[in-house]
């Protein structure tokens, strides 16, 4: 049997291959900076900055079923104006008109209700898109309101407003705070990033000798801590799991990345920053499996049994699920959970499956480990990256042709 450490290394290698490559990272940075420059040339005074997975260092290929799917990289284009100086529709129009007027961007542009997408041509067979979310600075009054409600007021000075589509090209403002979230995330990630940093940077260099001459050339944005890797693993597993539900509404049921980012970071804040990826993954999943008890226990009983755990909460009276957004006291990331009870049920089912697939499977015999990985990350992906590794001499699994239905008298 191939040892646990080699298995862990193989999973990490897989995830690193699904991550953004140094070449793509540089290319994406060049492209978004060029875009920012272009908008400035169009007299749009704005700051353009990454948010979401590109900013947090948790990028993973978006489609679990398609190993050649494009990376979606998200950016905010924030006007140096507050939201009371421009309407959301005017803001959108300003950026839309500029992009449409450009020979360079108009052909690559797709206009969506919430963002503008620029699609870049394949580079070495890898596609990516830049999604631009227009934004304005939030008003001082609104920021003050948020500060008063928050236990982290220092995060709220960066709050922004983005246009929210209400149908019929009608837009209103929606408060958001990606920079505040980024700051909160970085604070927790910092000790994880510091641990073993030189070793990890050297590993990046060793794998990318054609791109970097020395460790000093490696941008910080390419470093990945245990915490970031845990998020990437869970995101990729989530994509496969929810796709396999074979439901038209699976995208509405699956936990958004913001939930995974928040839960993993909030749980990691109490973990040992010297944990390796799999120690941290086990810790996070164990905690989430404890939170699963919220489904059956009364809030008081949960608190009695599990103490003051409050990353996922359930109110005692109306049983409302709450996952607070650390950078926005008015945002409950679990809003959808309260509208459809199937969503939290599936979420905790998925968490249990993650523990089985990503932790328990590490001690299975080779063939069973490989089958579990095929289930977890998809046969196509596994075949592409692992070939026949861990498969024993047994022929491939026999397909089920007849489809018996279990029955009970």
């Amino acid at each position, binding site marked *: 049997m191939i040892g646990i450490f080699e298995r862990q290394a193989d999973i990490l290698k897989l995830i690193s291959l699904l991550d953004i490559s140094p070449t793509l990272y540089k290319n994406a940075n060049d492209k978004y900076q060029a875009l920012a420059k272009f908008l400035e040339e169009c007299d749009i005074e704005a700051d353009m900055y990454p948010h979401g997975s590109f900013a947090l260092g948790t990028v993973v290929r978006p489609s679990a079923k398609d190993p050649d799917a494009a990376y979606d990289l998200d950016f905010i284009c924030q006007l140096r104006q507050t939201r009371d100086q421009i309407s959301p529709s005017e803001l959108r129009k300003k950026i839309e008109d500029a992009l449409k007027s450009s020979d360079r961007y108009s052909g690559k542009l797709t206009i969506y209700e919430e963002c503008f997408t620029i699609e870049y041509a394949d580079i070495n067979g890898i596609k990516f898109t830049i999604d631009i979310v227009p934004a304005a600075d939030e008003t001082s009054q609104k920021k003050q309101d948020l500060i008063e409600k928050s236990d982290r007021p220092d995060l709220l000075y960066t709050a922004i407003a983005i246009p929210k589509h209400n149908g019929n090209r009608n837009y209103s403002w929606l408060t958001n705070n990606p920079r505040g979230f980024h700051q909160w995330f970085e604070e927790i990630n910092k000790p994880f990033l510091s641990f073993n940093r030189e070793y990890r940077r050297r590993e990046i260099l060793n794998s990318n000798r054609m791109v970097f001459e020395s460790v000093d050339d490696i941008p910080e944005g390419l470093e990945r801590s245990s915490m970031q890797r845990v998020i990437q693993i869970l995101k990729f597993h989530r994509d496969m799991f929810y796709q396999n539900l074979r439901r038209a509404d699976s995208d509405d049921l699956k936990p958004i990345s913001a939930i995974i980012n928040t839960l993993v970071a909030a749980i990691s804040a109490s973990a040992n920053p010297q944990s390796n990826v799999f120690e941290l993954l086990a810790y996070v999943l164990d905690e989430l499996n404890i939170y699963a008890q919220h489904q059956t226990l009364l809030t008081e009983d949960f608190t009695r049994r599990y103490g003051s755990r409050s990353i996922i909460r359930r109110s005692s009276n109306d049983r409302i699920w709450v996952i607070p957004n650390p950078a926005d006291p008015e945002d409950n990331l679990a809003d959808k959970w309260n509208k459809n009870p199937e969503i939290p049920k599936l979420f905790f*089912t998925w968490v249990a499956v993650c523990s089985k697939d990503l932790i328990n499977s590490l001690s299975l015999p080779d063939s069973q480990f490989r089958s579990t990985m095929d289930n977890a990350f998809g046969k196509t992906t596994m075949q592409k990256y692992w070939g026949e590794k861990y498969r024993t001499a047994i022929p491939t699994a026999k397909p089920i042709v007849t489809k018996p239905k279990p029955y009970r008298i």
Partner: protein
Amino acid sequence: MIILNLTSAAEQISALLKTYPGLKIEKSDLNEVRLLGNIHIYRTALDFTLDNYYDIEIRIPIDSSSLPIAIDIGNAIEPSYPHRYVNGELCLETDTAVKLRFIDGFNLLKWMDEYVEPYYFTYEYFMRFGFFPFGERPHGLEGIINTYQEIFNEVDIGKTLRLMMYSAYESYRGHINCPCGCNKRLRICHGKYIFPLMTNSDIKELIQKDVESIRKAITENASRNNC
């Protein structure tokens, strides 16, 4: 009908032991053979692969109309799973569906391949995703009627019951109106589904038993309602 006679039993059990080397004969007499041991199941469907080992007991009645049964002696199936009896017996399918396969020349290896292994696959899939990959039968008589709905390719329960009655007690005549009540000739309506059933005495006997069970249940239900 006899599911497995003494002559074919030895041959089929020997083939079973060869395919599943973890199984051993635990008990054997003229009425029953019991196999006990561990089986490896390596099956795939719907982008999910089951690759696991299970402790199982298989009871094979000899010269009997009863079907073989499989028992989850390793308690791999959670007691809360709706398709496992309290004694651990796996609820593989309706007897009707399985018996029809045996009448059609089924053997124990195929029984394992088409029912026992997919049962475990279905269980693991259900535990992972929360739904049955190939559906499930309703419990009780509804499950039996549901089996015939599939056989007759008929969604209407009333029509299915009329077709069952006809198949159980009449002789096939293609030119009559179809018992489903659609005013078409039987041969151009449900004829192609019921003809193969009506020309086999074992199957007729099987349908008769199912019709009697349904009749009995309806009578009992009616008398309960009258009380």
